């Protein structure tokens, strides 16, 4: 990525120096901290029995509890506890034998009680880690991200800002509130500070959130859709001069709504902070908002004084003390780690690293596994998805998995394996299926795509090719087998790709005395 900073930009009027990311990373060391909020996919809310379904009519999934009506009381959702423990176990955390809810007190209209029932000094999971791998100049490198805590809390309502010039919050005339989302269970995962990532900080952050997302998905505890808000990331970063051994002042960036944004936001923040430091300015400890369109961050609401949350133990709820037996039962429920699964598949399929990375980055692992499960030969399954299907998908600007089903592709690959289709013919079948001409069998029938394997028909084409390239034929007779390729190619061309290439080769070599 190039630098976002343009010295001609009026914001930089008076700046003495402007650094781009690479330059910044030569002079400064970043320290990261990542907070991820996960919306659990329980049926009911964290502290009441209202439905959690997305997209309901406003204020139709509320009750005295999640509306914070006078006299209402919370009751903990057992499934939410279970999901949180599973998350903690999957992140190698210790599960606290004794944990408690606490009130986090602050005022905001989207918070019905003007306190959030959360956890403070007695969270349910502590001290875990997650290993991620990224590509560096020196090849793949591993980073261990340590996890400080995993705790439970509740989501807020949603506000709509009406009026004002931009419809955004500043200058709005009034706000409208929908509390359907208020009280939906949230799990917060907080890392310890992550030093030593250097210029790879943005990538490490992205890899962490990606791996976390994959783990959460495999646990089945959340939809983990960043675009829908069921997975949210706040990225913290601070810079210190290279080798200083100190920690700088950190900023927190919110509104990071995709994996790519995680990377871009940190890239932009590091550049911003480096440029402030270079120009003799302090980095202010503040919350900033990521702007999708520019990749920059802007300051959040400036608070006159830092909020004092006045945490105290929630008196309406009793402590949570999961017993060791239950925790072990949950541990047996843990699915295979995504990283373990990836290694296993790589070994099973015998795939080189570079191709494996390509598959993972293209998010084709699941569909390839599916296609193979339906009987397709592994190498072909991979090559087709990564190759032809991805190429077509790029052209049409859609996801590869939306073009064709794994079932249809598996069927086509099976026909190639049995010799009923050549690669070239198969491409036409794929095209036909994508165009909506029906199933592979339908397309083959409609378009009359058939491999020519009839010996006599092939011999006609072979003899024609020999006649056209007598010198090549002579070389083959002389023992130069590779030269056969040119003649085979000519036969394939003449038959419009319908010839069975292997059969052509067999017949040709036999004919030329090299069988």
């Amino acid at each position: 990525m190039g630098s976002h900073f343009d010295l001609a930009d009026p914001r930089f009027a008076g700046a003495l120096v402007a650094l781009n990311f690479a330059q910044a990373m030569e002079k400064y060391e970043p320290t990261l901290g990542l907070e991820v909020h996960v919306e659990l996919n329980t049926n009911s809310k964290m502290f009441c029995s209202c439905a959690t379904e997305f997209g309901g009519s406003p204020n139709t999934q509320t009750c005295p509890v999640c509306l914070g009506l006078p006299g209402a009381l919370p009751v903990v959702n057992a499934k939410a506890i279970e999901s949180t423990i599973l998350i903690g176990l999957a992140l190698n955390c210790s599960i606290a034998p004794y944990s408690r809810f606490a009130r986090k007190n602050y005022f905001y209209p989207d918070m019905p009680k003007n306190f959030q029932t959360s956890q403070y000094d007695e969270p349910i999971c502590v001290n875990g880690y997650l290993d991620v791998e990224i590509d560096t100049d020196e090849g793949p490198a591993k980073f261990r991200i340590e996890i400080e805590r995993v705790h439970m809390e509740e989501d807020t309502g949603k506000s709509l800002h009406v009026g004002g010039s931009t419809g955004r919050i500043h200058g709005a005339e009034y706000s409208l509130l929908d509390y359907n989302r208020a009280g939906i269970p949230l799990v917060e995962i907080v890392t310890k500070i992550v030093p030593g990532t250097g210029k790879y900080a943005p990538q490490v952050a992205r890899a962490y959130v990606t791996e976390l997302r994959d783990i959460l998905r495999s646990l089945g505890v959340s939809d983990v859709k960043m675009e829908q808000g069921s997975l949210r990331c706040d990225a913290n970063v601070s810079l210190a001069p290279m080798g200083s051994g100190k920690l700088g002042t950190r900023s927190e960036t919110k509104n990071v709504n995709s994996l790519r944004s995680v990377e871009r936001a940190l890239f932009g923040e590091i550049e911003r902070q480096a440029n402030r430091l270079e120009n003799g300015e302090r980095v202010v400890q503040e919350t900033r908002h990521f702007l999708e369109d520019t990749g920059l961050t802007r300051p959040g609401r400036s608070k006159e004084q830092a909020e004092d949350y006045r945490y105290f133990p929630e008196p309406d709820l009793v402590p949570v003390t999961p017993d060791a037996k239950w925790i072990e039962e949950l541990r047996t429920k843990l699915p295979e780690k995504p990283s373990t699964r990836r290694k296993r598949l790589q070994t099973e399929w015998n795939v080189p690293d570079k191709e494996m990375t390509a598959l993972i980055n293209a998010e084709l692992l699941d569909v390839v596994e599916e296609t193979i499960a339906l009987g397709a030969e592994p190498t072909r399954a991979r090559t087709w998805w990564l190759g032809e299907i991805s190429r077509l998908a790029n052209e049409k600007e859609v996801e590869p998995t939306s073009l064709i089903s794994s079932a249809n592709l598996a069927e086509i690959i099976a026909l190639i394996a049995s010799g009923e289709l050549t690669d070239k013919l198969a491409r036409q079948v794929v095209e036909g299926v994508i165009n909506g001409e029906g199933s592979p069998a339908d397309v083959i029938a409609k378009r009359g795509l058939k491999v020519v394997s009839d010996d006599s028909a092939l011999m006609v084409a072979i003899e024609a090719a020999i006649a056209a390239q007598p010198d090549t034929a002579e070389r083959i007779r002389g023992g130069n087998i590779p030269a056969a390729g040119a003649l085979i190619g000519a036969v394939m061309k003449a038959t419009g790709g319908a010839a069975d290439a292997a059969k052509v080769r067999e017949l040709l070599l036999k004919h030329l005395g090299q069988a």
Partner: protein
Amino acid sequence: MSSIRLSAAEMGAALAKGEITSVELTNQHFDRIAEVDTAVHAFLHLDKEGALAQAKSVDAKRAAGEKLGPIAGVPLALKDVLTQKGIPTTCGSKMLEGWRPPYDSGVVTKLKDAGVVILGKTNMDEFAMGSSTENSAYGPTHNPWDLTRIPGGSGGGSSASLAAFEAPLAIGTDTGGSIRQPAAVTGTVGVKPTYGGVSRYGLVAFSSSLDQAGPCARTVLDTALLHEAIAGHDPRDSTSINSPVPQVVAAAKRLDVKGMKIGVVKEISGEGFQAGVRTRFEESLQLLVEAGAEIVEVSCPNFDYALAAYYLIAPSEASSNLARFDSMRYGIRVGDDGNRGAEEVMNLTRQVGFGREVKRRIILGTYALSSGYYDAYYGSAQKVRTLIKRDFEAAFTKADVLVSPTAPTTAFKIGEKSDDPLAMYLNDIATIPVNMAGIGGMSLPCGLAPEDGLPVGFQIMSPVMQDDLMYRVGGTLEAALNSKWGHTLISQIPDLQVR
């Protein structure tokens, strides 16, 4: 012939025998209310329509031969801090003026199931903060024994309604003595059950770890009947005890304390209390001895810190519980002229909607929880709570129940202490330790103070989940006192001078 002076048990029996209908009984009470409540001001809202509908329904069931509970069809006054669906619930505050909850509290559900007729909502100190009902935004309630005096607080409306014969049963809530102290100064009976014994779902929270709803009546047996009707597990309240309801009615009828050890708590046994209060307390101890109990002296030294700890814990929890009153979703809204932001409207609403005492406690609680002060104040208070619990546990190894005068004085004059918060807080000195430990506490009338002729209350404290013990002792003492006097105490209340 009006039945309003009967006990609830007697009314229940009369109803069961068909001597009177619930509709007749209910109307008699509304007539009484119309006659005296302008002077007493126990009620904030009357629900004639709902009450008569319930009365009619109970009468119909009885006529159809259904077996009904002992207080089915009996009227009741409900402290305005408990939600009743569609009925105004103000908590004595301007903040909730006109608010009608969309749901019933657990207590109300149980009352309706028991066939009890809820006449209306009673006056209280705003958000249950006070000991005199002078902090109500709707004006004070007047003690029926002497209309120039306070009826106690925060549940003065409920206790006054009983003393004025406007209802034979009432529900109160008790956080530091708000059922027991009003009972003491109005010559009625009030019980704070073991914490968790009665559902807090729908009880507008003041101090969540201390609040408890409880039964109030003119006799110990009536209180027991109401106690059994409202107690029990509620899955909507995570702090609700999941155990069978204590057999308090049987205990109240037992009339036997032979062999029981009654512990007098040195630190709240009356030193510094009004002389007449001490006199009546000691006379009652004597009666218990005559009934076969043994008096032992126990010391709970940490009780000296109970008041201080309470006035840190309760305001702290209150500051958080009352944060929801911000005008966004319900309640009054002040200053929304289109030019002000949400925060400013919140600030103005809370300035106008809350009274002085409530604001005082919110600020105090905010301070006690704030960064840098938590350990010294809230944190320390929670430790004192542990010490108080330990004192009780130790005391209960030496005695079956503990006793003390309920309040240090009889009913004081309206306005006498309202400018001195600390003096007001001292009214709860004997009742607060009970809430801190979560045990059960009862106040029953034990006489009139000689110097002013005003009621004195006797407090009985029982161990966690052994509420039956206080009813056993209370029932026995009440019978002994009535026998000694030749009449009940409440029968001696002067006729209300109604203007």
